[in-house]
């Protein structure tokens, strides 16, 4: 089962690389046209020369094959946009994204599940939890980010308004962007864990457990929670995949370099090498996260194991 899934992932990546290459090649305007728009002194002669130099005058299948062969030999190529080898750019961007998205997701999951459990086990708190969830979810990320900046950076002056530390870990630079992302994601976790916990708590076997005299805390966390955690896990896996592609808006508002910004710039700037490698990397993380969630689901749900 694991082996087939891994093979499927490899196959998907191969097909995806072709589709993504085609998509980017189909986008209007090749890199040289983009350059001409920004530099009126480039002549027709210059354009032809640069096109030949970048290999853009060759037919599409040939370009794809050349690129794919290079990739299989471990050559990620060179980013035209950042004038750096692609591998050298991806490392720091990925690290920055993992720091941002990883901590935001962890915080959102922990808080979201706690809120969901609170709402499910103590119905009186449900409206308050709902209100928190609605507030968090209803704010567009860029707006929330700017509000936090106004409050904590501009007015109170406690935290930096954005950017990254020039040296050191720069933890205080992380607080506001992590809070922004966590607030945005927390609502879904709270909502889904509350929904499925409430549903699970009415199941007959829970009633049986209660009838046997199990304390409510044990019923909630030992019996109901593993069962109710499944949908939350699925969502978290999706989020993890999506965030591997970076939190573009958060990174833009807080001027943090990361995968989202890199990918956006690469696609918009028609930097095929960088865009493709980054896309494939993101796709790989996404699929691995899904696989992990499926495995966890198997481990948590005994009925699935039997099947």
């Amino acid at each position: 089962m694991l082996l087939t899934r891994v093979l499927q992932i490899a196959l998907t990546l191969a097909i995806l690389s072709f589709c993504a290459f085609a998509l980017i090649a189909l986008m209007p305007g090749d890199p040289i046209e983009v350059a001409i728009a920004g530099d009126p002194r480039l002549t027709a002669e210059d354009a032809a020369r640069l096109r030949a130099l970048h290999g853009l005058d060759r037919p599409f299948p040939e370009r794809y094959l050349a690129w794919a062969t290079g990739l299989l030999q471990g050559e990620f190529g060179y980013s035209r946009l950042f004038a750096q080898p692609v591998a050298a750019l991806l490392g720091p961007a990925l690290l920055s994204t993992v720091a941002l998205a990883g901590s935001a997701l962890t915080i959102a999951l922990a808080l979201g599940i706690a809120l969901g459990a609170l709402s499910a086990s103590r119905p009186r708190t449900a409206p308050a939890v709902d209100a928190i969830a609605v507030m968090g979810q209803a704010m567009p990320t860029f707006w929330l980010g700017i509000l936090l900046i106004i409050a904590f950076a501009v007015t109170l002056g406690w935290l930096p308004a954005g950017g990254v530390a020039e040296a050191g870990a720069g933890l205080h630079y992380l607080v506001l962007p992590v809070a922004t992302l966590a607030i945005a994601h927390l609502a879904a976790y709270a909502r889904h864990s509350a929904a499925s916990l409430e549903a699970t708590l009415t199941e007959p076997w829970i009633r049986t457990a209660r009838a046997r005299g199990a304390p409510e805390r044990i019923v909630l966390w030992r019996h109901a929670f593993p069962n109710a955690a499944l949908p939350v896990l699925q969502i978290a896996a999706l989020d993890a995949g999506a965030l591997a592609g970076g939190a573009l808006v958060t990174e833009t508002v807080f001027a943090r370099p990361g995968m989202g910004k890199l990918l956006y710039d690469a696609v918009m700037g028609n930097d095929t090498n960088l865009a493709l490698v980054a896309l494939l990397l993101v796709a790989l993380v996404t699929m691995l996260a899904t696989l992990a969630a499926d495995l966890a689901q198997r481990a948590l749900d005994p009925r699935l194991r039997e099947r």
Partner: protein
Amino acid sequence: MTRLRLGLAILLLLALAAAAAPFVAGALGHDPFAPDLLVRFEPPSAAHPLGTDDLGRDILTRLLYGARVSLAVGLAAALAATVIGTAAGVFAAWRGGAADALVMRLADFMLALPALPLLVLLAAADPSRIGLPARGEATGDVLRIVVILALFGWIGVARLARAAALTTLSRDHVRAARALGATEARVLCRHVLPALLPPVAVATALAVAGAILAESTLSFLGLGISPPAPSWGNMLANAQELVFSAPWAAVWPGLAIMVTVAGCTLVADGLRGRRRGG
């Protein structure tokens, strides 16, 4: 039950407000599309109950016209995603085996497919060439955004639906029903679909909200609804540039989005409560 009623009431009110946009504009005597540079950034007054925006247009009437666009985007995208997602998820769980693997791998593939180049491609495509409304007109933009959101939105619903359907299908009472000779259609309609409703209802409600939010993010990136048609998303994205000097221009569309999301969630909660008979 009261939650359901409250949520429905909010959504109904919003729909009514959207429908009433031309009348309100008429009553106030403002053209929400005509800039007037002499009255930029007016604070709320009797003439302009919510003030004016950066081009001197009445915010209230723009908000009402924006409701039409934003609600249309939200509902259309969420419904499309839910229908496709539920069908795909149930199909995968029910058929199992190769069909299951195929659907789930397709989902993986779609998830991994880069949305950004697709968006740029669609933004460049000229829908009038295939007989659809020309770009720039709100309908064209709405269509483009709905297609994108549905294309990437069905996956989450499908996973949710598949997981829930799998659980239900392995339940004893479903096995018993099958053993007693119930048709597959009956099993799906009587047992699987009802069991799906709670998670899918929650997902749909969140999808409406998510689509409205996604539209605002696209506006932020310059890929959303183009002017002069107002949407809550592009009103909010426009307001952010001058957020320090004219914050209220961003408060109203933000509030509108929040109320809508609240309405959707209440409806979802209400539906969930009714299924449980609680």
